[in-house]
């Protein structure tokens, strides 16, 4: 019978935890995690309060979360949440993130879902509220004072008469033995003391002084070093691995080949790097790649899986009867996550159990993936999240965890795998390329009377989830299949409007089954999405499809407003119905001192340096955050260079947990979006990806003339908390594209807006 370890056993017994917990060594020390738990290690029961929180005998609080900090502040803000709900100072709270032995399974930390998941009335927030109510109840009994006459000050419950009892006296070191209550009352934002304030991120001092422990810094006793040898071409397969070719390199422990997965393990990292470089592998060529210059046409010719999101069935008639019909085609390239730190993981796979120190966003799914790869049961695989470099979605964090597991299993030692930048650029899960066709009918009154949108995206693989290790390169090389597109015609839309990919423009009424859940007023509407098989792996990249779709919608809206000679802000407001998106558009325009007039700017010269402004807005995923962005740019019409000078973002994400953290997300998102808009594009030849380093994949370096970024935060204490990390980035390409048009009268419908492409558009103005 399998031994079931309690969580306490794990915490006590595992030397490994010392490694993972030292990740926070520079943060003021807390009592060590001591959760009085008795749950199955792989089935931490989220219904039990003790799965989320423990109060130690010294009154310190340990909280367990399944949503991890990817460098965007979730560690700090979840710590604030627990401190707030429990009425203790933030120094008393220690947060344990994503460890399959001790934290609840909250799936993947992604998709701007951490705040909606843990900050409303479920999960971590609700557990903390339950604990506070329970402690008040215990105090009432202990002090003989009614609960409604008690107050809490930093973990001490007090009555008017001066009687006091502390959390440690009430529960310290013991379990609550309670279910998480669905009715426990969250503290109202009007009472907030810790949430809603700009608590400096708790990792900041350690980061700035070089002492923060990333997964790259994990050292396990006996650890050796692995490197991988990826296929040089897409789809290439192994014919022969010549192990003798690296025999001359000292320290080489083993050449590992499994199906098409190839790697080397050596005592030292430099030896592993040399061996990976020198290892002779004969590869059978892959099937080749479609020609990049024709790729957007290629996409439209493939068999596709189709989804009709809205269809009022009168679009063709309304287009026919329109005073004008405008059409445009937008295209968006594959882009890379391009983490600054190439991905790294450490695995210790033994005969009957394994421990993986991984930067994955998906601790539990990765546990299952590694179970499938190694043949160990999922319960005997422990995945401990340790932060890696910022990932922005599915970078190589999962695949390198698989690499480490395969190599460790082959040598029966702990193995650290460091991917190279080329490894990662060659075969990551790129953000999808898209082609988006837009068509509107404009009425005689100048308003939009019908909107028709048809888009193509590409897909192959993606997040491995619990069952699909082949969705990333390592799993596929080891013999597991990736998910691909099964062609299927679209059914008529039923149920509710699904706008999670922002395929439906904000200006549409979004009517499905008689209920209109869109953010706009255009009632003659049709939105059809096609997904086709991608020749390259794809996966979620910050604001997946939402960014691509919004780029097309918001630039096209600008084209329509220019056609009817309307001001872009007024024309948007004329077609929007949702109060929250209206609110952000107005707030951004006001802060930017937006002057009401149509685009393009009259009087700009047709050569030399000109300036312009543009706006874009989004109801992110339909209702997961509302944002508007004004861009002011300078365009050099001789060189084609675009220089953003100023951005003004307005954001409504419900109650704001940490204003400075939110501003940081907006600022980073705007500039990351700018980099993606101006330079980033995966390139390939007929066999392989060719953008494989920072010379061939063009990101904005730090040494640019950084634009001014101003943020307007619209606090909505009464609303539900939404995501905020993917809103600003969604708007950058559209706002910049619209500003370029305003400055020059040239419309650029293809990202990135490289200097050559800008010059081409300028030349086409006629």
């Amino acid at each position, binding site marked *: 019978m399998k031994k079931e370890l309690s969580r306490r056993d794990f915490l006590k017994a595992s030397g490994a935890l010392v490694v993972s917990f030292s990740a926070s060594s520079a943060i003021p020390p807390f009592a060590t995690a001591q959760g009085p738990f008795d749950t199955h290690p792989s089935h931490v029961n989220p219904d039990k309060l003790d799965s989320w929180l423990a109060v130690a005998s010294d009154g310190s609080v340990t909280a367990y979360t399944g949503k991890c900090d990817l*460098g965007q*502040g979730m560690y700090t803000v979840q710590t604030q949440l627990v401190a707030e709900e429990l009425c203790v100072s933030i120094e008393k709270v220690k947060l344990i993130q994503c460890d399959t032995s001790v934290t609840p399974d909250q799936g993947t930390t992604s998709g701007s879902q951490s705040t909606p998941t843990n900050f409303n009335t479920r999960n971590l927030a609700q557990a903390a509220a339950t604990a506070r109510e329970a402690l008040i109840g215990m105090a009432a009994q202990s002090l003989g004072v009614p609960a409604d006459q008690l107050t809490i000050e930093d973990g001490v419950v007090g009555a008017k008469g001066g009687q006091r009892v502390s959390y440690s006296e009430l529960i310290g070191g013991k379990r609550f033995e309670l279910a998480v209550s669905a009715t426990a009352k969250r503290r109202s934002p009007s009472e907030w003391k810790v949430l809603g304030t700009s608590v400096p991120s708790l990792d900041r001092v350690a980061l700035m002084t070089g002492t923060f422990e990333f997964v790259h810094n994990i050292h396990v006793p006996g650890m050796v070093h692995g490197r991988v040898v990826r296929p040089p071409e897409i789809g290439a397969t192994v014919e022969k691995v010549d192990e003798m070719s690296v025999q001359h390199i000292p320290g080489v422990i083993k050449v590992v080949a499994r199906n098409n997965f190839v790697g080397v393990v050596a005592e030292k990292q430099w030896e592993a790097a040399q061996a990976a470089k020198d290892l002779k592998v004969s590869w059978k060529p892959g099937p080749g790649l479609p020609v990049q210059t024709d790729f957007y046409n290629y996409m439209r010719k493939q068999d596709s899986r189709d989804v009709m999101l809205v269809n009022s069935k009168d679009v063709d008639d309304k287009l026919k009867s329109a005073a004008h019909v405008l059409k445009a085609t937008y295209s968006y390239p594959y882009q890379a996550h391009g983490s600054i*730190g190439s991905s790294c993981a450490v695995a210790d796979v033994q005969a009957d159990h394994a421990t993986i120190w991984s930067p994955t966003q998906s601790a539990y799914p990765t546990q299952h993936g590694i179970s499938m790869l190694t043949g160990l049961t999922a319960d005997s695989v422990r995945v401990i999240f340790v932060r890696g470099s910022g990932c922005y979605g599915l970078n190589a964090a999962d695949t390198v965890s698989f690499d480490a597991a395969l190599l460790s299993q082959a040598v029966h030692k702990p193995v650290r795998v460091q991917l190279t930048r080329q490894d990662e650029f060659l075969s990551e899960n790129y953000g999808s390329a898209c082609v988006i066709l837009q068509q509107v009918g404009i009425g005689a009154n100048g308003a939009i009377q019908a909107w028709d949108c048809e888009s193509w995206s590409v897909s192959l693989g993606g997040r491995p989830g619990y069952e699909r290790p082949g969705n990333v390169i390592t799993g596929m090389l080891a013999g597991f299949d990736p998910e691909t597109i099964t062609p299927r015609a679209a059914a008529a839309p039923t149920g509710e409007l699904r706008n999670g990919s922002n395929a439906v423009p904000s200006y549409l009424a979004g009517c499905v089954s008689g209920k209109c859940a869109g953010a706009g007023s255009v009632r003659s509407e049709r939105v059809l999405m096609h997904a086709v098989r991608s020749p390259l792996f794809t996966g979620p990249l910050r604001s997946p499809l939402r960014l691509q779709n919004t780029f097309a919608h918001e630039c096209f809206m600008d084209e329509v407003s220019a056609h009817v000679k309307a001001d872009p802000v007024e024309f948007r407001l004329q077609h929007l119905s949702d109060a929250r998106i209206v609110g952000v558009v107005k707030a951004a325009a006001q802060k930017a001192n937006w002057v009401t007039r149509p685009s393009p700017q009259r009087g700009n010269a047709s050569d030399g340096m000109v300036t312009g402004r543009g706006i874009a807005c989004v109801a992110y995923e339909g209702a997961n955050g509302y944002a508007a962005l004004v861009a002011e740019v300078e365009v050099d019409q001789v060189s084609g260079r675009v220089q953003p000078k100023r951005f003004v973002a307005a954001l409504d994400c419900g109650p704001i947990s940490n204003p400075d953290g939110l501003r*940081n997300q907006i*600022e980073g998102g705007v500039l990351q979006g700018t980099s993606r808009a101006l330079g980033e594009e995966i390139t390939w030849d007929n066999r392989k990806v060719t953008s494989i380093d920072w*010379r061939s994949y063009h990101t904005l*370096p730090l*040494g*640019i003339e950084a634009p001014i970024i101003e943020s307007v935060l619209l606090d909505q204490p009464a609303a539900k908390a939404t995501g905020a990390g993917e809103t600003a980035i969604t708007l950058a390409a559209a706002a910049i594209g619209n500003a370029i048009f305003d400055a020059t009268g040239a419309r650029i419908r293809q990202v990135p807006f490289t200097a050559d492409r800008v010059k081409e558009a300028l030349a086409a103005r006629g």
Partner: protein
Amino acid sequence: MAASSLKVNGHVHKVDVPPETPLLYVLSDELQLRGPKFGCGLAQCGACTVIIQGKAVRSCVTPISAVTNREVITLEGVGSPEKPHAIQQDFIDEGAAQCGFCLSGVILSAKALLDENPKASDEQIQEALSNVLCRCFAHTRMMRAIKRYQARRA
């Protein structure tokens, strides 16, 4: 294999590695320092930056043989959590990071420039950071922190 002697953050270490071993691997694997990091391994991003004789140097392409008898300063050697260096304090005060993986490149490149040339122009600062990447794009805050440090030096 001859033991190399090297001085890092004030301490002398003897390491037994081939002379062509990149300095970064010695710092992160042998000495278990956390400041310099493997970013690209191509001297294109800055994450592995250290300071040697006042200059910002990419440790991922610097062989260990090139640094014997020269002191190497890493991000954790510049200041400590208890007593951060002035430029680290400026970054702390500005909240100038997201994931923070890039900070050796950002902080040490700026420090090396401004310690040598406190009156550096904006263009010179941009030039010094033209091959430094931050993929979270905390640029505006980082530039504010750098300007703050420059104001202290003036």
